[in-house]
């Protein structure tokens, strides 16, 4: 995140980032005009376009310059949108957004492949592709207005996905989701405008909404910046969601169709945490530091609350939904530790949560398809007839609990380490959440897969080839990132370091809270003991 201008850092002549948005949109358009006589083409088009987008995002991973000093935004592109107000399509990614782009690129094809809608196929595929474009837009936008546009635009497809193809109380869940998030970000627009106009006034330059320019200038007065930060934070806090603004999440997750839950948990929840990193910490270092204790506390409450409530759930899907509240508490905690370990851990945990929870939702969806129930007490002994499913469920569950050797451990460990260095007691309390996670997930597993088989549920089909293909990549990621997180971390590190440096520069008397040994990635597994010292 250096001051280098985007226009000069264009490393590729092909507008690769815009294509991440345009390809899904073209796909949606194609879906919309496909002949009524050829319904089988719909899924093909949707899968092809999302696979192409995914392939491009994976290509980015290798093309991304991770050498030393590469903290600046890469693959930049720039296109005027509303010249009157200096708004433009400004795209670019760094180590922070890179993996979220890849996560989006990977999860969408899987979600599309995994499930078939019960009706209105055309609209289903169309909305999913529009959603993908919107999410990609959030992660690659470096213009405040463009970010806001995409951030808000994802509401519409998600609203329809929940409302039209969801279960049970879907209308209520969809409307609640829409209104909650829209109300949350209503003030963010005023905040963005205030920021831009005040910045223009302070610097005497023309009005601009360019993230890098505004963030580097830090031209707002301290108190003003705190108010503007709050207007942003409210929008992000709803989206994350941070306790006590989380009440939309269990409803939305539970009533959404499987693919909707996967996308919601895997990608959409990251919009908020990503927003905190990119538009909270980077734009308002002082205010973020000032309000950090509030968010740390809310994060810890979220961890404990999510875990306790998850334990009580009777509905398997709702249980996974509440576990998300707990996991996102960890991410918030890491982010506001304001040190390298914490933020890197938070970022890793965003990806881990995306992978693990998506896999869990897919598995719950598969169980539901077979048994037509999600009530834990109506299930039991599934492992007998579906051993492979039980095995994968175990693995995914352990990753979600944070077992060493799987991906969840790396993220949680780094977060706790970072928080411990910065705010010892918060880390100590948060660790209880790790124990509780083991409790509710293992207990749920035990009730669903072990014990006596329930009536009419003796003969459960094991995973089909398609399901194996869908779960395979996620399982591979879970293991790979648990065993060898280095490639991921080394791409994040320059950007995270630059962000910390940025905070240190702009907050008087702030120094990154670190251990004597410095970064402790790849150390032995005595992590949790370390946190208890």
């Amino acid at each position, binding site marked *: 995140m250096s001051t280098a201008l985007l226009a000069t850092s264009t490393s590729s002549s092909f507008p690769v980032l815009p294509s991440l948005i345009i390809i899904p949109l073209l796909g949606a358009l194609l879906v919309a005009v496909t002949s009524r006589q050829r319904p089988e083409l719909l899924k093909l088009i949707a899968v092809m376009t999302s696979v192409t987008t995914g392939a491009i995002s994976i290509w980015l991973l290798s093309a991304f310059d991770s050498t030393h000093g590469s903290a600046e935004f890469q693959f930049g592109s720039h296109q*005027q*949108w*509303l*010249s*009157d*107000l200096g708004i433009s399509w400004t795209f670019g990614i760094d180590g922070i957004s890179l993996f979220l782009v890849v996560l989006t690129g990977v999860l969408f094809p899987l979600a599309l492949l995994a499930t078939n809608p019960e009706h209105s196929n055309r609209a289903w595929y169309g909305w999913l592709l529009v959603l993908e474009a919107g999410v990609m837009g959030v992660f690659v936008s470096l213009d405040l*207005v463009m970010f*806001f*546009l*995409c951030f*808000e*635009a994802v*509401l*519409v497809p998600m*609203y*329809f996905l929940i*409302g*039209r193809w969801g279960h049970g109380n*879907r*209308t209520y869940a*969809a*409307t609640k989701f*829409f*209104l909650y998030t*829209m*109300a949350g970000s*209503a*003030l963010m*627009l*005023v905040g963005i*405008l*205030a920021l831009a*106009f005040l910045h223009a006034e302070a610097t005497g330059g023309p009005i601009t909404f360019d993230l890098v320019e505004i963030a580097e200038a830090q031209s707002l007065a301290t108190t003003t910046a705190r108010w503007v930060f709050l207007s942003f934070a409210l929008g992000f806090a709803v989206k994350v969601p941070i306790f006590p603004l989380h009440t939309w999440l269990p409803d939305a997750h539970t009533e959404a169709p499987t693919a909707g839950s996967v996308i919601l948990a895997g990608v959409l929840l990251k919009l908020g945490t990503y927003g905190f990193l990119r538009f909270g910490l980077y734009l308002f270092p002082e205010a973020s530091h000032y309000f950090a204790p509030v968010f740390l506390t809310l994060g810890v409450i979220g961890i404990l609350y999510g875990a306790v409530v998850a334990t009580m759930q009777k509905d398997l899907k709702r249980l996974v939904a509440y576990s998300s509240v707990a996991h996102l508490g960890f991410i918030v905690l890491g982010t506001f530790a304001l040190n390298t370990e914490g933020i890197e851990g938070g970022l890793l945990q965003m990806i881990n949560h995306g992978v693990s929870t998506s896999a869990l939702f897919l598995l719950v969806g598969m169980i539901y398809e077979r048994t037509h129930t999600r009530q834990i007490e109506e299930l039991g002994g599934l492992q007998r007839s579906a051993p492979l499913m039980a095995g994968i469920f175990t693995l995914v569950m352990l990753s979600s609990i944070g077992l060493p050797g799987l991906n969840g451990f790396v993220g949680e460990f780094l977060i706790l380490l970072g928080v411990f260095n910065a705010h010892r007691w918060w880390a100590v309390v948060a660790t209880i959440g790790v124990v509780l996670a083991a409790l509710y997930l293992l207990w749920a597993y035990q009730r669903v897969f072990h014990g006596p088989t329930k009536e009419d549920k003796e003969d459960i089909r094991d995973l089909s080839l398609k399901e194996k293909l869908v779960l395979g990549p996620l399982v591979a990621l879970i293991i790979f990132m648990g065993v060898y997180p280095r490639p991921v971390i080394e791409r994040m590190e320059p950007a995270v370091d630059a962000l910390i440096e940025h905070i240190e520069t702009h907050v008087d008397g702030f120094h990154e809270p670190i251990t004597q040994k410095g970064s402790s990635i790849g150390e032995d597994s005595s992590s949790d003991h370390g946190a208890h010292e």
Partner: protein
Amino acid sequence: MMFAELQTIPSPEVLWWALVPLLLTGGGGVVLLTFASIKSNLPSWFSALWVAGISAAGFISLFPIWNRVAEEGPKTFLAGSVGVDHSSVFITGILILVVIATVALAHPYLKREDLPEVEFYVLLLLAAAGGIVMASANGLIVMFLGIEILSLATYVLAAYHLRKIQSQEAALKYFILGAFASAFLLYGIALIYGATGSTNLVEIKEWLSVNILFDDGLLLAGFAMLLAGLGFKVAAVPFHAWTPDVYQGAPSPVVGWMAAGVKAAGFAALLRVFVATFGSYVSDWSPAIAALAIASVLVGSIGAVVQTDVKRMLAYSSIAHAGFLLIGVQAATDRGTAATFTYLAIYAFLATGSFAVISLVGDQGDNQHDLEAYKGLGTRKPVLAGAFTILLLAQAGVPFTAGFIAKFGVIAAAVEARSWTPAIVAMLATAIAAFVYLRIIVSMYLSEPSEEKELSIHTGGRVVIAVSAAFTIVVGIFPSLLVDLAKDAIPILVGG
């Protein structure tokens, strides 16, 4: 001798080229009326075509006028009582487009409801002529004339559904309250004249810029009266009480005209009088308009939530939109004015498109407006429901629709002018109002159809809805097309 004397009377200069749209609409209406009274069995398609042709010609004539104003600058003529600038051309454009849309809807509507056609078109053209006069008036008296021409024609249009008692009731309500508003307006004009010694906007502006009033009570009272009168026309709270009933009762195509056309003309007048003329007294009137704006967005949004009749919902939502427009006005800056014009243009499309849908769903008798009637529209008429969804989401201000551009513009203007309260309240009201639009969408998509009923969708409605929806998306994605145009449309008053 007598000749020489006569020649000393100066005849006012007339810029005929600038009057073309007004002459076409006003004259076209009168000619049609004459024609129809001579030849009683005029085929109905002829009169519809006549109006459409006249309006199209009027619209085309705007392009050379716009260019000429761009080259030669704004002008005033007819002894300084009428002006031509980009703002008047812009508003004229909106009005004419709304007329074309209204005719496209009204022609099949009047046939379906078995109502006489010619008078409808005549009144519509006259109303448009009144609106054009309002948008180009350089004097308060001329502006008043415009308002009255517009209003009287619209009162009659509201009553046009002869056999519906609600239509009569709507018109009577509109007329009586409108007469009150006109009285306020006229009284305000008198007070302004008393304070400044003129009714000519240019003269008032110049007089106020060189004179300081020791006692400005008369002038401020005049502001209040003018604001009340114009506030009624644009349906701003607390002058909004007529809106839900009138919108509910009046024929649906007429409601489209009231929401889009009358509002555009009213705001053109408001901007001309307050921002352009009384700019030096901004600290006196701006807080009042801000208060009206806040009240309008809140009452409009909250009022809409409790409705079950879609027409009433959109009536309240039009009050909320008036509030948003007023937020652009109270900023009293060029950005605010440009944002208001952008908003007007966008809302014209949203309103005509939405009321076109309502008019179609209303079906024979124009009374199927309950939320029930929209149940399952998504499966019965997927394209119609899709277009309506776009229009509703745009009204909610969802990104990548024109509605977002409209709201973004006025909020940006408010923030630039440091009007924090209106900006924040308006954004919160947006979230409330979103619920209303979602309710309609829920009925269309998420509820089972209550009864299978075949809706007949006529070509006129189809075209209007398609154009509105397309406009909504295109402007949402490429806003510069419209915003740059509106930026040039700031009212400029020039002396003769």
